């Protein structure tokens, strides 16, 4: 797989059939945040070379109004939690037309995440993500305490 830099801590993976990303972060909460921004960058087609620094805070021609929405996801461990978290953000994007900006999480456990997501009205995405797959999915704490994740999307 080839790769390009995305938002902070995110490296996009280029695959013949699908798209993916590696995410590095100092904590699990930061991993969730960075993975959310990385997935949105893929949705908006910002994984192209030279666009790696673009984040959802930059202009996509949308209103600057923010909404606070509560979110809670559960899973059988960090990787399943990460997948469930991304699915939640994808659902907000597609059905509620809201894009994640940042979150204030009250619970960041191994099996449950709960808190508030700050979101803003979604723009016009460049592609559809059909699903957050379990293929090669991982979210692992490194020996030095940092976190590393890999997520492959069906597009």
């Amino acid at each position: 797989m080839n790769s390009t830099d995305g938002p902070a801590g995110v490296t996009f993976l280029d695959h013949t059939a699908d798209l993916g990303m590696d995410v590095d972060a100092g904590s699990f909460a930061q991993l969730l945040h960075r993975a959310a921004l990385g997935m949105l960058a893929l949705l908006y087609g910002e994984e192209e070379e030279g666009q790696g620094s673009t984040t959802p805070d930059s202009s996509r021609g949308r209103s600057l109004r923010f909404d606070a929405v509560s979110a809670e996801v559960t899973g059988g461990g960090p990787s399943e939690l990460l997948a469930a978290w991304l699915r939640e953000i994808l659902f907000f994007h597609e059905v509620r037309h809201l894009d994640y900006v940042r979150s204030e999480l009250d619970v960041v456990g191994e099996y449950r995440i709960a808190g508030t997501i700050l979101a803003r009205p979604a723009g016009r995405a460049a592609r559809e993500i059909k699903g957050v797959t379990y293929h090669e999915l991982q979210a692992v704490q490194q020996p030095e305490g940092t976190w590393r994740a890999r997520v492959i999307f069906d597009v």
Partner: protein
Amino acid sequence: MLEIQRLDDYRWLIPRQGSMRVDGIIYADDRLMTDIRADEAVQQVANVACLPGIVGRSIGMPDIHWGYGFAIGGVAAFDPDQGGVVSPGGVGYDINCGVRLLRTGLTEQEVRPRLARLMDRLYEQIPAGVGAGYKSFRLTADRIRAVLERGAQWAVAEGYGDEGDLRRTEAGGRIDGADPDQVGDRAVQRGRDQLGTVGSGNHFIEICHVDEVYDDLAAQRLGLDPGTVTVFIHSGSRGLGYQVCDDYIQVMMTAARKYGIDLPDRQLVCAPLGSPEADRYMGAMSAAANYAFANRQMMAFRVREVFEEIFKQGWQKLGMTLVYDVAHNIAKWETHEVGGRDRRVCVHRKGATRAFPPGHPELPDGYADLGQPVLIPGDMGRYSFVLLGTDGAYRETFGSTCHGAGRTMSRRQAKKSVKGRDLRREFHDQGIEVRASSFGTIAEEVPEAYKDVADVVSVVDGAGIGRKVARLRPMGVLKG
């Protein structure tokens, strides 16, 4: 490293090894096999062969390529009496993604002068692109339930087609056993305004003309004489189907642990056929498949309306009958001969097309002696094919064959390769009118990003798991 044996010009055997319960087989010639070996598809065929209750062989079609869990272009059948399973990953996110082909009584010469206007009106009338839906056509809870239960039969009862459409749709446009109660609220929400929409990625509506015929009699019977204008519709169950797959992968994750199923890849999560988890998935998946049949039926209705407007005649007078509608992402109960006796098995086709032979009881009257039409779209610049199902496919591949071309370039590579080119102009100069909601989609879907579908079709024809009837050239392409 997996052992692979070449059996003949078109068949490669992956003999049972490691945890494989059955052999694997891949249909390919030398050139395609080189591409196939370059990614993980061969390993994925072997992984599927490890699942409980698999019977016959784990099968890879010539258009096979890496997928998540199951390869795309794979076929596998599972016997409930041998602990067989059902796996959402063996169907894919886009449940009942499939192809529908309408023919017309019009010739290329009659359509070409009005082609640009035709494409403009199709683009205006049929939502295409990321998340595209109808603002004025949003299904109520009752109506979406009816769609999930009755599929294309619902659409025809509402006036969006006729009985002939249903006769020439796989399973009559309605899979038995659909259970809307097993479709979650989120899936329903995603499906409310997307019925009758194309979607994005490789989905399309394409106006073609028949440019080559390989079997005059069969082509004539299908209404595909040389020069005949046709319309391909390629789409599936849209966001509703993606959500059903997503929801049930999570259900199956728990089920696989519960039933102690050892998986070589987590995306192969599954549950034993007959278990509550499997029953719920089959009910929800069949409901999503019905949504997809209704989706393509609604688009066919809109296509006919646009032709009526442009050519000032009713669609029946324009000869716009359905040739066939077939799924290429589905799991279905079917009866096949395994080990010398008929068994009821759950056949998973992920990126593979049903290809039943002449005489099969599920074929409609007009096709009973001909075999089931098989629709194989290629890329947007070259050609597509119409084939017929064969006895060979029924014997060897659970009545299945290939489904398309398969990518050779990643989306980013494809975009890079066309930088600075005026693609719309290039297609126009080739006689193809393109309408799309974004330039990015066209760039990602350029012909050079795909294998030549003629190579794929020539393998299935040579191996006897499909029979070539006609080739279609694109004239107008509507992409998301």
